[in-house]
């Protein structure tokens, strides 16, 4: 058997991750009220990415799943980034033209 369900994850891990997620939620709310200038959105997104990664690895069992699943997720994120980066490239560079 190779699928993620084979490995039974202990509830202790779940509760730990849950507490970390709650902590990060608190931090991100706190950070929103601080003045980090250009870093405000970066901090917020970094925290969101960390939370998402924890959910993916532990709640969704990707840490215990075959590598193929991680590859599939990677592909999805890659193409998502293409959509965002190339579309943004247009908008950002419009101002460069004389």
């Amino acid at each position, binding site marked *: 058997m190779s699928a993620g369900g084979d490995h039974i994850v202990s509830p202790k891990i779940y509760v730990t991750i849950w507490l970390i997620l709650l902590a990060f939620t608190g931090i991100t709310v706190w950070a929103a009220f601080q003045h980090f200038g250009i870093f405000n959105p970066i901090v917020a997104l970094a925290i969101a990415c960390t939370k998402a990664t924890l959910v993916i690895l532990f709640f969704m069992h990707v840490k215990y799943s075959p590598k*193929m699943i991680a590859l599939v997720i990677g*592909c*999805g994120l890659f*193409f998502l980034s*293409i*959509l965002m980066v*190339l*579309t943004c*490239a*247009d*908008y950002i*560079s*419009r101002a*460069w*033209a004389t």
Partner: protein
Amino acid sequence: MSTATQNSLALEMPSDTYLNSSYGVKSWFLTGDHKRIAVMYIVSISLMFLLGGIFATLVRLELLTPQGDLFQSDTYNKLFTMHGVVMVFGFLVPSIPVTLGNFLIPIMVGARDLAFPKINLASWYIYIIGMAFMLAAIISGGVDTGWTFYTPLSTQYLTTHVMFTAIGILIAGFSSIFTGLNFIVTVHRMRAPGMTWFRLPLFVWANYAASIIMVLGTPVLAITLILVALERGLGIGIFNPAMGGDPVLFQHLFWFYSHPAVYIMILPGFGVISEIIPCFARKRIFGYSAIAFSSIAIAVFGFLVWAHHMFIAGISTYSALIFSFVTFLVAIPSAIKVFNWTATLYKGSIHFDTPMLYALAFIGLFTIGGLTGLFLGAIGVDVHVTATYFVVAHFHYVMVGGMLVAYLAGMHFWWPKMTGRMYPEAPAKLSALIVFIGFNLTFFPQFILGYMGMPRRYHSYPPEFQVLNVLSSAGASVLAVGLLMPMFYMLWSLKYGEVAGNNPYRATGLEWQTTSPPPTHNFHETPIVTQEAYDYESQTEEVEVVG
């Protein structure tokens, strides 16, 4: 079973096939059998193709004369819109994957069915529901936005049935996603023992690559259509300049799907050609890995070029440069395929059966279509020929001269496998010739028209363009005859065609090892694969291929 003296053996239809395993309406409409679902799809998309063809006929009738005398301009707008919408979403996008792909992929990988038969059936029903919405839109008066639905025309200014059509396309998109998902999981997880990735037929690689696109691109179309619906229905302003929105954003999101969509259409066509050429040249395909990897490359690169449809829409020059450059890159894997097919033909023992005639036509017509795509990808040229008949000719060369011809090639090639009967060779060859002549007569003049400046989507034009337009419409009527003929002789062959036997062409591939038609579970015993694909060279006897 030897087919060496096929012509003299009286073959019988096999007794236990997927067609006669059970009878009755429920056994078809509630089937899980991928082969039956494929047959239901063949019927459905053929009907949609006929409908799209009717709209095309009306368009070409109008364009016989320079004045807009047959239809009002609004009606004409509806005609070309419905032609595009029905053909793209009702025929081209599903086409080969849901018919030949559904039928053959499980057999080619050595499985009893796809990974998720119920989802396969659901995807057919979803397709039908999507088409029903589209038909409802057509019957209630149609849409006139162009199949591209550009905002703010589609969201602000038109009173036609944009919503119905958008919902129909949205629903049909789910059908596409489910098909792609099924194929991906099947190819990854259901291959028979010994069937390694590099022993797979290239048809499987091609559909796998197309499935990746289906799965990644279609959802973006879905959200785009939902946003258009929200804008039309609720008055939000994401694409509305008066409310701060940007209409070009719609185009970005729309083309992010719709460009890769054309690769969904053509990649399975490439797969069909890769199966037919080795069989009728009696030679192993040249450069298997190159063709396999180039399919994946096209799927990936196809996502990086979408704004080449938007060079004059107001995007920045710098991003236009990037998109133009990558457009040139994406032509390379396609060219690699054309070189490899040609190299396969070289020193092959070529048999001009109908599938091969279509395949040879494909190579030539697709090359023309593809190269003209490069003209369009060059920004300087594009500024002059975009939104003219040059574009129309380009995409009809790749879609009709490429994809439709490949579809016909595949239908003829695998018809004996699906039905157990051979189509009649003489009418088939004749209609292939008529299609080729009619197609070129219809669309080659359009390159010239576009270059001379005739805009697309106009129902009237300056009188100096009339001669070429008349040629084009004449060609369309010839093409129509050529395309209608198979409908008749294929149906005829179901009852009166020669019984085909397991492998009338002596082709390699697991599908030819089982009966024609195959039994419900494809194989009586699970195959083990020990040989590489396209092992034509080890067949040393020179045998006359049936046909």
